[in-house]
């Protein structure tokens, strides 16, 4: 009997004990690991969200590894990186992992974790959270931004756009699928720091910071190199020859001619990268900064950027495509050969305002014309041949219809049924607050979390 009473007392004590301490406003303190066995929400989730008030908690852990995928050393390294980059960029950086999303989407988990645990800097709670879900069959991550980083509510210089989201997610993906979680997160934190400082995730050395951009005044840099090889595509002698040719063209035709080899677009988008390189590099002649920049990317793609007064043919999409195609074909024999071909074609464009066609285009045109000519040939021959034969059996008697004799005495339209045919034709998707797809990531701009806060974000499965 005594033993039975002791068991009851122990059970009563266990029932009364909470799994985690609770703050005065109802939000839980993040000290208990894992989800509560009897709850369908994670342990940090407020019991009552109806009266939730936003708060900031500088002491909340910036790395919450509930899925236990980091070692202690890795967690410390991530924390150190976060400390450095958030101080550098002036926005909160948080990483959370979990072995379940508790029935929520990755986006909802990330948003709610950030909102209900007091993250963010300043009154707008500026910050970014990376949620890594390790749930079997539901593995993936979601990045959510808040405050000045959210393009839905801010027009500041540092925004989590689709381009930025894809660049950050692309870099993280390889780490995630290969199980190098800590390494990937540290790299991600570094990229986020760069993005917070420069406005782009992988800013090149020449790129100004956000503060510098705010006070930047455009000026021509007469000493800027016309061949800038950041991808190691040209040998020294090749670069010198190209430099001389570009200079000759610039001097002769009064338009800056620049070639830049880059490994990638630094997560800015190729057009934005080319524009930034041209403008921040101080290129362009005269007051309208006339110039033509060819960017040769490491993936083999090329982009032509022009400003000011340039031959009109270079404003024609097809002509530019042809120019790039022909120089791209020549680049198969080496980047320098491609650049030489480009400068040669550009000279013709500057001289004659036209880009000649490749011999392949001419041959294709001739073949198409020859084949097309068969049609009038066959029609004319058939028509001439038909005119030689005027003997034909009469098929109808239309010419002998008595005028006004045709009568419809009665008519009746009998419905016999319906047949339908369905052709699959998917509608193009457009980005919306509910989410859209861009690149390899799912991007969501300007959605509202359960707490009522606005977030934007992106994520992928792995």
């Amino acid at each position: 009997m005594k033993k039975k009473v002791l068991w009851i007392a122990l059970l009563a004590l266990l029932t009364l004990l909470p799994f985690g301490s609770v703050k005065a406003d109802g939000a839980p303190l993040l000290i208990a690991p894992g989800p509560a066995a009897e709850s369908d929400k994670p342990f940090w989730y407020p019991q009552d969200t109806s009266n939730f008030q936003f708060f900031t908690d500088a002491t909340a852990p910036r790395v919450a590894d509930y899925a236990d995928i980091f070692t202690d050393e890795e967690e410390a390294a991530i924390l150190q990186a976060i400390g450095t980059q958030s101080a550098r960029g002036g926005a909160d950086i948080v990483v959370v992992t979990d072995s379940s999303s508790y029935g929520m989407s990755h986006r909802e988990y990330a948003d709610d974790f950030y909102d209900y645990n007091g993250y963010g800097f300043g009154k707008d709670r500026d910050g970014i959270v990376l949620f890594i879900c390790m749930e079997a069959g539901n593995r993936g991550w979601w990045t959510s931004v808040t405050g000045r980083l959210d393009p839905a509510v801010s027009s500041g210089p540092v925004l989590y756009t689709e381009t930025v989201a894809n660049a950050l997610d692309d870099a993280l993906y390889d780490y995630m699928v290969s199980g190098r979680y800590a390494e990937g997160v540290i790299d991600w934190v570094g990229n986020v720091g760069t993005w917070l400082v420069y406005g782009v995730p992988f800013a090149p050395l020449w790129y100004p910071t956000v503060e510098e951009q705010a006070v930047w005044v455009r000026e021509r840099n007469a000493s800027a190199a016309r061949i800038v090889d950041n991808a190691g595509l040209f040998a020294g002698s090749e670069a010198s020859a190209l430099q001389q040719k570009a200079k000759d063209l610039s001097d002769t035709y009064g338009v800056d001619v620049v070639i830049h080899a880059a490994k990638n677009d630094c997560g800015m988008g190729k057009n934005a990268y080319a524009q930034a390189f041209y403008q921040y590099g101080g290129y362009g002649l005269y007051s309208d900064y006339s110039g033509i920049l060819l960017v040769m990317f490491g993936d083999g793609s090329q982009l032509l950027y022009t400003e000011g007064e340039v031959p009109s043919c270079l404003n024609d999409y097809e002509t530019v495509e042809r120019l790039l195609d022909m120089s791209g074909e020549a680049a198969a024999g080496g980047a320098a050969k491609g650049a030489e071909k480009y400068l040669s074609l550009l000279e013709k464009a500057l001289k004659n305002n036209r880009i000649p066609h490749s011999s392949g285009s001419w041959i294709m045109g001739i073949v198409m014309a020859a084949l097309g000519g068969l049609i009038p040939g066959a029609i004319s021959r058939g028509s001439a041949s038909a005119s030689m034969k005027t003997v034909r059996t009469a098929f109808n008697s239309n010419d002998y219809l008595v005028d006004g004799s045709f009568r419809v005495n009665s008519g009746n339209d009998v419905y016999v049924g319906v047949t339908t045919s369905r052709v699959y034709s998917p509608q193009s998707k457009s980005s919306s607050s509910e989410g859209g797809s861009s690149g390899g990531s799912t991007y969501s701009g300007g959605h509202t979390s359960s707490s009522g806060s606005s977030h934007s974000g992106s994520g992928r499965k792995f």
Partner: protein
Amino acid sequence: MANNVSGRKCPNCGSALRYDPESSRLICDFCDSGFTIEEVDAADREQAQQVGSMNFTAGNEALQNLKAYVCSSCGAEVVADPQTVSLVCPYCGSNIVLSDKINGELCPDGIIPFAITPKALPQAVRNFYKGKKLLPRNFFSDASIGTVQGIYVPFWLYDSNPAGEMIFNGSKDRTYRDGDYVVTEHRNFELHRNVSMSFHDIPTDASERMEDALMDSLEPFDFSAMKAFNTDYLAGYVADRWDKNAKEMKARTDRRVYNSAVTIAMTNTTAGYSDVNLNHRSHLDMSNSTARFVLLPVYVFDIKWNNQAYSFAVNGQTGKVVGTLPEDKALKTRFFLKWWAIGAAVLMAVNWLLFLH
């Protein structure tokens, strides 16, 4: 056995008369006289009172289907097949009308006299050659036109009044989007149309000797110029009586009428429907039709070239020429290459202007 033969004689000199399409008169080429049909009738009546009407005796009946006639002018025996009702004596050139063959149901209900003279034929043929790009170059110089024969070809003219229920299948369509699918809905109907219409004077040749397609191709004839039959119009021409009766030829005419009836009914009664086609349960009563027998003027001749004969026919009323001309294979190839080169050059120019410039 006596066969009735009539040949019109010149009231002045007794020579044979021929019908002249240009002047619509009977002409004597011997004394260069010209008479209307009424004038010759009056002269004949006067002569009959004086010497009695002339009788012609039938000749040899040895051949089963051929009959021999004695020419009233020269006394020669002329053999004619059963279909021939008018011919020219090969000995003296007199016109002979075998009037015993054009009695009763064999008597035409009308005739369209020749309006085109044989003299006008070469020009008509030359016009026919015009624009024929594939005609061999030496066709004009080497070809020889054979004997031109003016023939009154027997035709049946049908009046047809088809009536009945035409049934068409048709649909009203609408297209809408259902998610990622484009759905086309066809609401199908049977369109029942009780129709009637009338066709007048559909010509169908009634001569076995004439190729049907060749005679069809001579249309149209102007039936307002139709005259009451008179043997005098036959003078100078060959004429045949029908050897395919009206009942026999009705099926061919009905096919033409049916095709027209379907087209006319479909065009006029199915507006608003798409994919319209004829339902096989349609029924059109074609029995309400009549036919009359007429003679229509046709010239026929062969052109011989390169050891081959090419048959031609000319509408004796309108001058329309029909026939199949020979094609020069080399010209045909050159013609094709010429237009192929022009087409290719135009396409290349367009290509250059739009894309390669």
